[in-house]
């Protein structure tokens, strides 16, 4: 018996030592994203893209001779959870930087924690205008609505020659911002908003609100929603027999829009800064790589998360060290980074200004509008 125990303890000790010895220095990245709850389908795409990016970077030898390791935390789309995870990441001395969260509300709840600890908080998608000015450690790469909506307003007024439009939006931080900037710009161009209505997260029945909007007799409908709500709205609009041009922001860009909406989303206009059919070989490499790995087509949110890990790796490389201040400064100085979602340059307030292309759903597929 004693022999057995000695052997066992010896093995554990030796393997433990070997393990520690084999551990090359790494860069520990934390990802905060909703894996469960109402926002899970967006959060899962974050995880897929970041894992894929990290594997690719590590396969090429990592950054500064170190490989990335990833910890994923599930914020459930709940600001309280997001803040708890922030506490967890900043109290772990191995965590170097954080990517996430999905919603603006979650990012803003955890912002003070990252700010106090001096840790980079890089959100792929937070687009509330108040977010990044709140802390010098906060970055967002989606591009705030204040820069995106002029594109849609211009499309509506000048290209499609629409005079009047009705607006339907989801009642949250993001939806409020989106409809506000769209309306401001559309009206500035001389257009008229006939009616504005909202709905709540989790609503499934839009007939009442669509009936009300229809009575205002607009030329077109603008919907500031996520793609799955947009698909339901379109289905119900079609059943009501209300046919008119429909426009919406880049959140509609997903193959799920057609999978759920069927023929009812045909003709819908949206703007994108990431387009899966872009002939650019870098974008094709990502799209086919993602399809092969996950058997799904990456959407806008996935592409933004993929850009996040690459832009962070790029900043570490340029900083040349793992000094948090140096990397933050290098990240803030990012200029013309060639990402999947276009060229990224941070503003002094650490938001990205994107360029947008307009696409339309034609026969169940997105096509660039000439």
């Amino acid at each position, binding site marked *: 018996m004693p022999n057995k125990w000695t052997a066992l303890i010896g093995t554990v000790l030796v393997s433990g030592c070997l393990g520690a010895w084999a551990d090359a220095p790494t860069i520990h990245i934390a990802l905060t994203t909703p894996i469960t709850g109402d926002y899970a389908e967006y*959060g899962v795409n974050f995880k897929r893209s970041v894992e894929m990016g990290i594997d690719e970077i590590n396969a090429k030898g990592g950054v500064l001779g170190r490989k990335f390791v990833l910890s994923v935390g599930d914020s459930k789309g709940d600001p309280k959870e997001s803040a708890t995870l922030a506490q967890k990441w900043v109290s772990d001395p191995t965590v170097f930087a954080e990517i996430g969260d999905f919603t603006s509300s979650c990012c803003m709840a955890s912002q003070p924690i990252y700010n106090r600890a001096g840790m980079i908080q890089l959100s792929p998608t937070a687009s509330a205008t108040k977010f990044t000015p709140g802390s010098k450690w906060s970055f967002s790469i989606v591009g705030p609505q204040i820069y995106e909506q002029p594109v849609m307003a211009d499309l509506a007024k000048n290209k499609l020659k629409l005079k009047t439009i009705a607006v339907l939006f989801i009642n949250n931080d993001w939806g409020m911002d989106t409809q506000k900037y769209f309306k401001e710009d559309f009206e500035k161009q001389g257009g008229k908003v006939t009616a504005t209505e909202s709905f709540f997260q989790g609503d499934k029945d839009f007939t009442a609100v669509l009936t009300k909007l229809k009575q205002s007799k607009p030329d077109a409908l603008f919907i500031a929603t996520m793609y799955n709500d947009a698909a339901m709205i379109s289905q119900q609009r079609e059943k009501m027999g209300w046919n008119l041009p429909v426009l919406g922001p880049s959140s509609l860009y997903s193959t799920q829009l057609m999978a759920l909406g069927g023929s009812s989303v045909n003709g819908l206009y949206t703007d994108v800064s990431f387009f899966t059919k872009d002939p650019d070989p870098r974008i094709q490499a990502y799209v086919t790589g993602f399809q092969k790995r996950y058997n799904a087509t990456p959407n806008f949110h996935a592409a933004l998360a993929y850009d996040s890990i690459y832009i962070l790796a790029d900043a570490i490389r340029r900083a040349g060290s793992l000094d948090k201040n140096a990397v933050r400064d290098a990240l803030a100085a990012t200029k013309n980074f060639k990402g999947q979602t276009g060229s990224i340059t941070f503003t002094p307030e650490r938001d990205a200004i994107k360029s947008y292309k307009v696409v339309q759903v034609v026969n169940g597929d997105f096509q660039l509008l000439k």
Partner: protein
Amino acid sequence: MFLQQLINGLAQGSLFALIAISFSLVWGLLRMVNFAMGEVYMLGAYAGWLVVAHLTPNLGVALLAGFAVGWAVGWIIEKVAFKAMRGVPHIASLVCTIGFSFFLKEVATWIFGAETKAMPSYYSQTAFTIAEANVSWLQVLMVAIAVTMMVALQVLFYRTRLGLAVRAVALDYRTASLMGMKVDKVTSLAFSLSGALVGFVGVLAAVYYNAVNPGMGFVAGLKGFTAAVFGGITSIPGAILGGYLLGAIENLSVQFVSSGYRDLVSYLILIIFLLFRPNGILGKKTKL
């Protein structure tokens, strides 16, 4: 416009009403609320979706699958949350059903994935048009189902021996068991029936909204419960009435106030109503 919005509220009201019936069934028997009802509805919808997406496009089979899955889940919930906890304060069972609600939702996310799945349309052709509102055959069917269910359950409860047993157990389960009634069997049956009903409704909702996702049960369950209390939770016709009224009030408040204040207005009406008539529209006074 008034009429058009009323008709819009009809289909939504049918869904509320059918979920409300399920709440009434459980309340009537155990004076308990099953807060996992919305998740049973969601699992029923997934069962229907599985059938349509992988087996056969037959809607009847899909509805049957929703019914069967709802029956099974209802049975399990009764065994764990109620039977195993008989004799301990009721609050434990209540919290247990809340636990089930989160658990079932995450299980569905784990099995089916978090993204919304598409459900094809059935009977979506316009049956007739009133006040510019298109009424589809599906909407007609939903109203017909709600009314049929109400009648069938009334017959079951007031015209059969089984119904008599259920009512006896509801009145006083100790005395009923002393009289030789199989209290456990009756309770289990009523629970499974309420689960089956709500699973069936889940498939209808999935077809009506063309979508299934793990989060679909939460709001539906809450609104169904509200409709049940509104109509008088002790009464099945009351549950139906509560469902349709809630549907109508919600749609009319979108029309005449604002969609942003829809829930504010409808629930304000509800609270004021309950202040004056705490037993709901058709509810009877009950001693607890």
